[in-house]
C-alpha cells in the first residue's frame, strides 16, 4: 500500500512529462511500438497459419490415417521386380487378418484423370475405384437425401454405379436436374449416379460455394472426385488386380508408429521383401508444420526482440536527456526532502509510462496489421479470417514492453537518484 502511495504521484508525473514532450516521447516510443506491433502481429499470423495447417491435416484424414502408395523399386532391387506382384486385394485380406490395430482399410485404384459426360456437359476429373471403407478412412459421408455410397454388393457384382463429389456434380448437371439415377459416361462407359459425397467446406481454406462452377479454393479437388467400385475399376479400366494405394485408419493415434512398423513388415513379407510401396502418415506433415511453426516463431521472435532492444535503448536515451534537462528539478525535489529512492522511483515510473504507452500504441498497430493481413489473404485465397488476435499474446507483448521500459529506465533513474542536491541546484 505504501509503495502504491509513492508510485501514484510518480506515474502522474510521468504522464505529465509525456504530455509536455509529445514529439520526443513519441519518437522514443517508436522502437517499442514497432517491437510490440511486430511481435504481436507476427505471432498471431503464424498461429493462424498453423491453425489452418492443423485443420488441413484433419481434413486429410487426421493423424489416425495411414496411406500406402505404390512406389517404384529402389535401384538395388530393380532386377527382382518379378518377385512381387504389387499391391492387391490379397494384401488387404492379409492386413485385415494380421493387424488388429487397423480399424478400416480402404483399397484404392486410381483410374486416372478421365472424361466424364452427362448430356453434352463434360469434365475431366480423377476417377477412383474404392470400397465402402473409403468413407471412414477419408472421414467423408453421403447424406441420406443425397443417395448412398458404394456398397459391398457393388463390389461383389462389379456394378456400374458412381458416386460424385459435389463440385463435379455441379459441373455436369444443370441446377434444376437431380443427378441421382441419371446415367453418365465415364471414360466412355455408362454408369448410374447413386450418390453425392458430402461437400467439404474446410473452415480454413474452403470452396467458396458448392454450386459455383469451378469454384476456386485449395480443396476444390476434394469435392471433384468420381468414385466407382474398386472391382469395377479393375475389371473395366485397369485390366489387372493391382491397387494403386491403401488408406488405413487406426483407432488410437498413439498406436500410429507401432501400426506403421507392423504394416511395413507385413507388406514386405507379402511382397517377397521388395519395397514397392511407400507408407506415409499425416503425422509427418503435422511434424513439418510444427517445425515450420517453431522456425517462424524463433525468427520472428528474434526480429521482435531486436526491435524491443532498440526500443529500450531509445527510452534510455530519452530518459538520460530528460534527466539532463531536469537536473535542477531533481535538486529542488531533493532539497524539499526527496530520498534517492523517491527519485529512482519517479524516473523508473516515467520510463515505464513511456513503454506502456508505446506498448498500447503497438498493440493497436498490431491490430491494424492483422486486419490488413487477413484482408490481403482473403483476397488471395478464399478463406475465412486467417488470424485472430489472442489476448494472451497481446498481454505478453505489453508485458515485454513494460519489462523493456523498466530495464531501460534503471540506469537513468539511478543517475537521477545519485545526483548531489547541491550540485544539482547550482546547475544552470
Amino acid at each position, binding site marked *: 500500500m*505504501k509503495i502504491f502511495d509513492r508510485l501514484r*504521484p510518480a506515474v502522474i508525473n510521468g504522464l505529465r512529462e509525456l504530455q509536455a514532450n509529445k514529439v520526443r516521447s513519441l519518437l522514443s516510443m517508436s522502437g517499442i511500438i514497432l517491437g510490440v506491433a511486430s511481435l504481436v502481429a507476427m505471432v498471431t499470423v503464424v498461429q493462424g497459419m498453423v491453425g489452418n495447417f492443423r485443420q488441413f491435416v484433419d481434413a486429410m484424414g487426421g493423424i489416425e490415417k495411414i496411406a500406402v502408395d505404390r512406389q517404384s523399386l529402389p535401384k538395388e532391387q530393380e532386377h527382382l521386380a518379378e518377385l512381387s506382384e504389387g499391391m492387391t486385394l490379397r494384401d488387404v485380406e492379409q492386413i485385415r487378418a494380421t493387424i488388429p490395430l487397423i480399424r478400416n482399410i480402404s483399397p484404392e485404384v486410381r483410374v486416372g484423370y478421365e472424361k466424364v459426360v452427362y448430356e453434352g456437359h463434360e469434365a475431366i476429373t480423377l476417377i477412383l475405384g474404392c470400397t465402402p471403407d473409403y468413407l471412414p478412412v477419408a472421414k467423408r459421408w453421403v447424406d441420406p437425401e443425397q443417395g448412398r455410397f458404394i456398397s459391398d454388393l457393388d463390389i461383389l457384382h462389379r456394378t456400374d454405379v458412381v458416386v460424385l463429389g459435389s463440385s463435379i456434380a455441379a459441373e455436369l448437371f444443370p441446377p434444376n436436374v437431380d443427378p441421382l439415377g441419371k446415367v453418365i459416361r465415364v471414360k466412355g462407359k455408362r454408369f448410374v449416379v447413386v450418390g453425392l459425397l458430402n461437400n467439404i467446406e474446410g473452415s480454413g481454406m474452403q470452396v467458396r460455394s458448392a454450386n459455383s462452377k469451378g469454384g476456386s479454393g485449395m480443396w476444390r479437388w476434394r469435392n471433384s472426385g468420381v468414385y466407382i467400385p474398386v472391382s469395377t475399376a479393375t475389371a473395366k479400366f485397369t485390366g489387372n488386380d493391382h491397387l494403386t494405394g491403401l488408406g488405413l485408419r487406426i483407432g488410437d493415434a498413439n498406436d500410429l508408429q507401432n501400426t506403421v512398423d507392423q504394416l511395413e513388415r507385413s507388406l514386405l513379407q507379402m511382397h517377397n521383401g521388395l519395397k514397392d510401396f511407400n507408407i506415409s502418415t499425416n503425422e509427418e506433415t503435422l511434424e513439418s508444420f510444427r517445425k515450420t511453426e517453431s522456425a517462424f516463431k524463433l525468427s520472428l521472435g528474434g526480429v521482435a526482440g531486436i526491435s524491443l532492444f532498440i526500443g529500450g535503448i531509445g527510452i534510455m536515451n530519452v530518459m538520460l536527456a530528460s534527466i539532463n534537462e531536469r537536473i535542477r528539478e531533481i535538486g*529542488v*525535489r531533493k532539497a*524539499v*526532502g526527496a530520498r534517492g529512492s523517491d527519485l529512482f522511483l519517479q524516473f523508473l515510473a516515467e520510463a515505464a509510462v513511456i513503454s506502456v504507452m508505446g506498448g498500447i500504441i503497438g498493440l493497436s498497430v498490431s491490430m491494424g496489421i492483422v486486419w490488413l493481413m487477413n484482408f490481403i489473404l482473403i483476397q488471395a485465397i478464399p478463406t475465412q479470417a486467417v488470424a485472430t488476435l489472442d489476448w494472451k499474446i497481446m498481454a505478453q507483448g505489453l508485458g515485454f514492453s513494460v519489462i523493456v521500459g523498466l530495464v531501460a529506465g534503471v540506469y537513468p533513474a539511478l543517475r537521477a537518484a545519485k545526483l548531489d542536491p547541491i550540485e544539482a541546484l547550482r546547475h544552470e
Partner: protein
Amino acid sequence: MGSLFTIRGLRKAYHMGDETVHALDGVDLDFERGEYIAILGPSGSGKSTLMHILGFMDQPTEGSIVFEGEEVSSLSADRRAWYRSNRVGFVFQSFNLLPRLTVLENVALTLLYRDDSNRETNEAAAKFALERVGMSHRLDHRPSQLSGGERQRVAIARAIVGNPSIVFADEPTGNLDVKNVDRILDLLGSLLAEGITVVLVTHDLGVAAKARRVISMRAGKVQEDRQQ
C-alpha cells in the same frame, strides 16, 4: 526559547585536484529557536557551505552539530532527506519552482516525500500556506505566469508548509526589484512569530540589516557575531 543548533569545531574541506580548500575552518555557533539571523559574507566565505550543512544537504568533514538535542553531524542520506522534509525549509535566489507544476502542487511538493503523505491533507496544508503568504488567488497558475515577487512568495509558502524549525533563505531578494525586496523580507521576518528560526544567507548589507543577529563570515571562519 530553546537551543536549536549547537555547532562546535565545524570544518569542511574540499579536494580540488591536489589542493585542499577549507570552506569551513572551525566554526562554533549557537542558534536559538525563533531567532532572525543573517549570515553575511562575500562569495567564498563559507556561508553557503554552512547553510548546506545546517540544511542537511551536506555533511561536515569534522565537528559536532547538535540539532534539537540530537547529534546530526554524520547521518545517512535518507536520514538527512527526512530532516529536509520535516524540519527545514529553503528559499532560493532563483525561486526554483518546478515549471510544470501548478502553484499549489509546487507548495505541496514539500509534503509529498513524507511517510504520511496524503493528497488531500497535503493540498489543504498547501492552500493554508499560500494564504499565509497572500497567494491563495493563484493556486492553479504555473510559475511562469507569476511575477518575481509572487514566485518568491510561493517559494516561501513551499518552505513553511511543512512546519519547519528553521528556514534558510539564500539571497532571497537577489532577483527581485526594490519594491518586492521589502515585502519578501517582511514576510520572512513575520515567520518568527510562529517560532520558526529564519536564516538569511546574503552578501548584501542592506538585507542583513533586517535581521536581529548578523554573523559575518570570512575565509571559513566566523569573523563577527553581533545582535543589532
